[in-house]
């Protein structure tokens, strides 16, 4: 019983930790039920900021879509559209999808990332040479 309560407290504490730092949740339970903290990190703070931007863009996606539908219009009166312009500018800056950068998932490299694999060219080449990529073969023709 005590172990259960303890594990629950620890679990809730860990959740709080998660929400504040937004780490990946890899906490695993061993046989006794105690939470073993397996920490997950994002590669760097830039990656973390990119993650935050993506989450925020998801939250505000619908609102932005509707506001833009009102703005990009030839039917509604222009006064309304001006007001809509101001409102959309008042949204938080991280909510616009333009700020998202497709970084490499392994190394957080912002450039040279192939979209299909979400990997930078260096990591891709490393994995492919070690036969870790299914269906990828060195080109020769």
């Amino acid at each position: 019983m005590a172990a259960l309560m303890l594990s629950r407290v620890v679990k809730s504490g860990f959740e709080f930790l998660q929400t504040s730092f937004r780490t990946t949740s890899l906490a695993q339970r061993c046989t006794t039920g105690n939470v073993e903290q397996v920490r997950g990190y994002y590669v760097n703070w830039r990656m973390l900021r990119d993650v935050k931007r993506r989450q925020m863009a998801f939250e505000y996606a619908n609102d932005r879509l509707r506001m833009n539908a009102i703005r990009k219009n030839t039917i509604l009166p222009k006064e309304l559209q001006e007001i809509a312009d101001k409102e959309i500018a008042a949204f938080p800056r991280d909510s616009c999808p333009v700020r998202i950068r497709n970084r490499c998932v392994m190394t957080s490299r912002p450039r040279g990332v192939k979209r299909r694999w979400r990997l930078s060219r260096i990591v891709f080449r490393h994995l492919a040479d070690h036969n870790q990529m299914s269906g990828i073969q060195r080109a020769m023709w």
Partner: protein
Amino acid sequence: MYRRIILLATRNRSGISPIAEHSINITNQQETKRTSVSTCPNRQRMHYNKGVCAPNNRPFSTSTALSKENEESSAPKTGVTEAKVKEEEPRKSGKENLLDLLSAMKVGVTTKKKFQALKSQKSKEQPRVHPESMESATSMFQKATTEQQAQKESLSPELVAAASAVASSMPFKKSQTESELLQQLRKHESDTEVHKKGETNNIGNIIADMKVGKHPNARSPNRPANQIRFDDDGRGYTHDRGVVNEFDAVRRRKSLFTGKRLNIFPSTTDTTETEPKEVSVPSLWDIELAGQIAAVIKHLPRNGFEEMIQWTKDGKLWQYPINNEAGLEEESDVPFHEHVFLDSHLEDFPKQGPVRHFMELVINGLSKNPYLTVKQKMEHIEWFREYFQQKEEVLKESEAY
């Protein structure tokens, strides 16, 4: 083979030009692949000459009839006919609205009936008959017809009423069009049911109207080999024809469960072993206990397969075979007219003016969107309602409300 009915919706509200040409195709996607005679609607409208036959084989079409249809369909385009103008739509349920809309629409039919009738007759005259499978084929067709009759009641009465309303508004052959519309609806429903349940046993419903395909007999090259022929080595035995011919019938069956029943074993009747237990809402203690047991039993994955199983249970990995509608099981229960006919939600908006025009465009776009659930569409519309109510003053200043 199947009809393509193009419904041109013209809703004339005074002051605003007809907004959208709303084209609803009630054909299935399967059928569009099979239409050997596909008529492009644009091409249709160009054939005004009475004597000209299209390069598409149309031996039985009456070009006068076609030209009449063309004139009919082109007239509402110019917005001349205002005979069927509805000024006000009184508050009705969605399905009554559907009826109204359908009765107000102009319908242009674009296929050849006689050619189709001929084709269907021909297909029914040539069933491929194998002596062994004769019983199963006929029994399958019998089942199909009975099931089709039983399925008539599965269509909701409003849909049937709507179909009869559409048929009555059409210029010729009302009973035939009505029956074909009902057939389309039934097919649509049966397909969605099959898709939902994932059953492929009751394909009798679907194949009831399909063309009977010719079964290429792959064994025919073996028949001349039936005759005795001497081996070149002089050993005196023929080719292995006996084995081939014995198992020919068995091999021809595509599945294990076709064929005559032998009635050797008594069929087991599964009695209800598990009586429905009274399942009360599990308390927190029960949940905790279950979690504890699971935690004790669960071991760390020993290999990649177990890891993938664990991930699938967690939801991190998709379920294979890939189901495109993985999270959307409830959505398939929603009937199609709730997605398409969203006009009834526009009641709180002003009936004229740019706001109404804007909202009708929004609804037009939403009705064509197959990726959103009905809930999401409603949320969009509600958001706009609140927004315009907040901005009433601004709109009144610019005389737009």
